[in-house]
């Protein structure tokens, strides 16, 4: 059963991979979706099994085979189903299935649907490897695999050079992170002599180490570099907005719901290690908060609907890192889950819009789509309310928990809270702006385009995800909030993963403080959302005036702080120049000359030895015989 869970996507990949020339999107989609559905059902089965177990013993392990045995080092191809990987598996297969279903409609007219679905299945397989592996190496295999699939899918329409370039950019940026991750694995192996999660967790010292150069801190920082790459944090976030070149369901699955959260998952998985390195956690929290803020500001000025969502994703990922950085792993996971739902929903919704608009992504050419696409609009509203943190929608609970934790946790700081709230404010603004420009207000749709509601295979996933976006938050109601709500809902998710978490004493903050802070953030969020509504629906001329007033700031934001250009100017171009010099001066003049002279030597020597190689097979056999006789003599003489 477990192998069904793990290998059904691989099987789907193989089937679709072998018939990659097929253009039958329905069949390919059915195979791929069926594989994921099978996987999802098995995951549900195991979920039922885990729930029945006592809380401390919730762990099932499966060893496929011994993978590597070298000296002291041993790694198994082994998998663990524990509460944490269970949640991830359910998200991956569940959301993955919905997105596969959506793709059937979305990729209907594509030329290579079988290839697309094969990649998508392969991605799910690798993602499952990543979350289910019981040691860092298996995780790394999955980590690389999802990177590969991400590259393949971003560049899926590779005939467009820009899109192919976006794929390469994602891949190369990820390589930097992966190098860090690999260094982290090495450091961990050097320190603990093992790469298995449970063994690492049990051998981490109980007392936190405050030094900057302690191996644990180093390992954590290296791992975090890996997470930066995969989860698009400053400074390696630049690939994610470009990754929107891929098909929209890919953006939903890989670049919103699952792959980009792998970094967060990895840190939660290694939480015991990170708790022992407070400095590393501080870096994580600061980078997360800054990313949340910076990406949110960039999102304010984007006009491409998918770019807005991409920056929003980066920003929300920043929130998650903020959460895990201050030790609120449960909150991080909760936000990971709710974000997977509402962001996948919004990406799919945007896909539906783009599909309806005939591949038009510019929001300035939309507007007033509400009356053409009622279902898309209704579900999008759910996602919008969830992301801005409207009370009792899913994002509200998780985001509020993060903000409260960043203030209250012993590893937190009030500055982090301030940054978080400002980011939340901006989030509310740009999301409302997106809603307003796309669905509300007057239509700016060109004459030639007739928007229409999407087919039923596309709307069903939207409806299911909309439902989840609204209600999933009740799985992770913050403790303080739960105590005053009717029925006193527990923080189910926190309790669920509690056995896996290291010990971090949170203390009891005052309930009044918590509600006060929540009130402040809610007021700011509502105010900013209302302002955006005023700007883009009530009086569409206002944005122009506002832009003119803060022109410098606007340009800075609209051009994404010139980060890409900066990278080119200060890193890539100097590197290219340096390597050109290396090639022209060192390689050609020094190394080549040396190797040529050496090769000349061998060439001449070989000319002499060429006589030996007469082409006469029997003489070759004679050489073998001579060798055998000589070695026999040696053996017998001993």
């Amino acid at each position, binding site marked *: 059963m477990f192998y069904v869970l793990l290998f059904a996507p691989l099987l789907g990949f193989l089937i679709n991979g072998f018939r990659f020339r097929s253009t039958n999107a329905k069949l390919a989609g059915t195979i791929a979706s069926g594989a994921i559905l099978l996987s999802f059902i098995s995951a549900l089965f195991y979920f039922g099994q885990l729930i029945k177990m006592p809380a401390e013993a919730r762990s099932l392990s499966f060893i496929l085979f011994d993978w590597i045995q070298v000296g002291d080092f041993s790694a198994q191809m082994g998998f663990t189903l524990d509460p944490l990987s269970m949640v991830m598996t359910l998200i991956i297969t569940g959301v993955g299935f919905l997105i596969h279903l959506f793709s059937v409609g979305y990729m209907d007219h594509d030329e290579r649907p079988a290839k697309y679905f094969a990649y998508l299945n392969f991605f799910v397989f690798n993602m499952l490897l990543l979350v289910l592996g019981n040691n860092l190496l298996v995780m790394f295999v999955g980590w690389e695999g999802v990177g590969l699939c991400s590259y393949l899918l971003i560049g899926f329409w590779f005939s467009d050079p820009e899109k192919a370039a976006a794929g390469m950019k994602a891949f190369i940026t990820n390589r930097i992170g992966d190098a860090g991750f690999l260094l982290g694995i090495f450091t961990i192996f050097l320190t603990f002599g093992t790469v298995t999660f449970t063994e690492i967790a049990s051998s981490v010292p109980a007392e936190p180490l405050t030094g900057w150069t302690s191996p644990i801190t180093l390992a954590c920082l290296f791992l975090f570099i890996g997470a930066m790459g995969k989860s698009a944090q400053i400074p390696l976030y630049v690939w994610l907005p470009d990754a929107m070149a891929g098909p929209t369901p890919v953006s939903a699955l890989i670049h919103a719901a699952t792959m980009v959260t792998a970094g967060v998952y990895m840190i939660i998985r290694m939480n015991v290690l990170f708790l022992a390195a407070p400095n590393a956690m501080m870096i994580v929290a600061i980078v997360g908060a800054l990313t949340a803020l910076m990406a949110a500001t960039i999102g304010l000025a984007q006009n491409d609907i998918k770019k807005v969502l991409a920056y929003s994703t980066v920003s929300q990922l920043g929130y998650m890192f903020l959460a895990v950085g201050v030790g609120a792993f449960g909150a991080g996971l909760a936000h990971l889950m709710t974000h997977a739902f509402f962001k996948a929903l919004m990406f799919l919704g945007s896909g539906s819009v783009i599909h309806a608009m005939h591949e038009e992504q510019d929001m300035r050419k939309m507007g007033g789509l509400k009356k053409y696409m009622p279902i898309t609009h209704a579900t999008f509203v759910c996602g919008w309310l969830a992301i801005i943190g409207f009370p009792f929608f899913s994002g509200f609970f998780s985001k509020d928990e993060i903000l409260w934790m960043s203030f209250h946790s012993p590893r937190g700081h009030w500055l982090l809270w301030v940054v978080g709230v400002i980011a939340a404010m901006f989030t509310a603004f740009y999301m409302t702006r997106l809603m307003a420009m796309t669905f509300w207000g007057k239509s700016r749709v060109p004459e030639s385009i007739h928007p229409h509601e999407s087919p039923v295979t596309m709307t069903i996933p939207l409806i299911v995800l909309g439902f989840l976006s609204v209600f999933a938050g009740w799985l992770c109601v913050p403790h303080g909030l739960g105590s005053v709500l009717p029925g006193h809902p527990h923080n189910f998710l926190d309790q669920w993963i509690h056995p896996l978490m290291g010990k971090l004493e949170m203390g009891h903050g005052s309930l009044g403080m918590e509600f006060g802070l929540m009130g402040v953030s809610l007021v700011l969020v509502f105010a900013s959302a209302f302002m955006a509504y005023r700007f883009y629906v009530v009086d569409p001329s206002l944005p122009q005036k506002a832009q003119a007033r803060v022109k410098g700031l606007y340009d800075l934001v609209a051009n994404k702080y010139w980060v890409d250009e900066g990278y080119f100017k200060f890193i890539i171009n100097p590197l290219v120049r340096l390597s050109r010099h290396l090639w022209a001066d060192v390689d050609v003049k020094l190394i080549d000359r040396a190797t040529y002279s050496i090769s000349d030597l061998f060439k001449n020597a070989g000319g002499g030895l060429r006589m030996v190689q007469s082409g006469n097979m029997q*003489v070759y056999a*004679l050489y073998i*015989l001579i060798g055998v006789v000589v070695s026999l003599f040696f053996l017998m003489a001993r």
Partner: protein
Amino acid sequence: MAEVVIFYVFSAVTLFGALGVILHPNPIICALHLVATMCGIAGLFFGLNAPFIAAVQLMVYAGAVMVLFLFVVMIFNLKQEGKHIFSPGQFTNGLKVLFGGMFAGLLLSSILFKINNFGYLTPDKAAPQFEVKNIAKVMFTDYVFSFEILGLLLLVIPIGTVALSRVRGGTHAK
């Protein structure tokens, strides 16, 4: 007594056949000698209490491989041109014989002088280790992977030979 007869009769057939293979100028006669060798070896297997392997030897070598050899010789009439049966080259041939002799001396003398030391190895004639069922059990449990790989090899070989025999005008021609 029976085992002495078996051993000497069949090893005589085997070695005589082998001599014929390496000394006779006509490839057809060589092949026929090889058939005799194969039958002799099958007899030796009988003597070693392995009748199944002996029968397999008969079926595969005597019944299939040698038939193929004879087919090829007969169909293509691969007669030897010229009267030399050995490769030319006095020096290398001398070396070959010299080292071959040294190898033979080392190998056979080491076996000969160890015959008495091998006395402690007494076969358990009643032991069922050569019953085909035991062979099969080992083959389908311990060696099951090799077995499936062999299946793959047996898939590849005919494809390769069929492809080879259809090539016209060299290996690179279309």
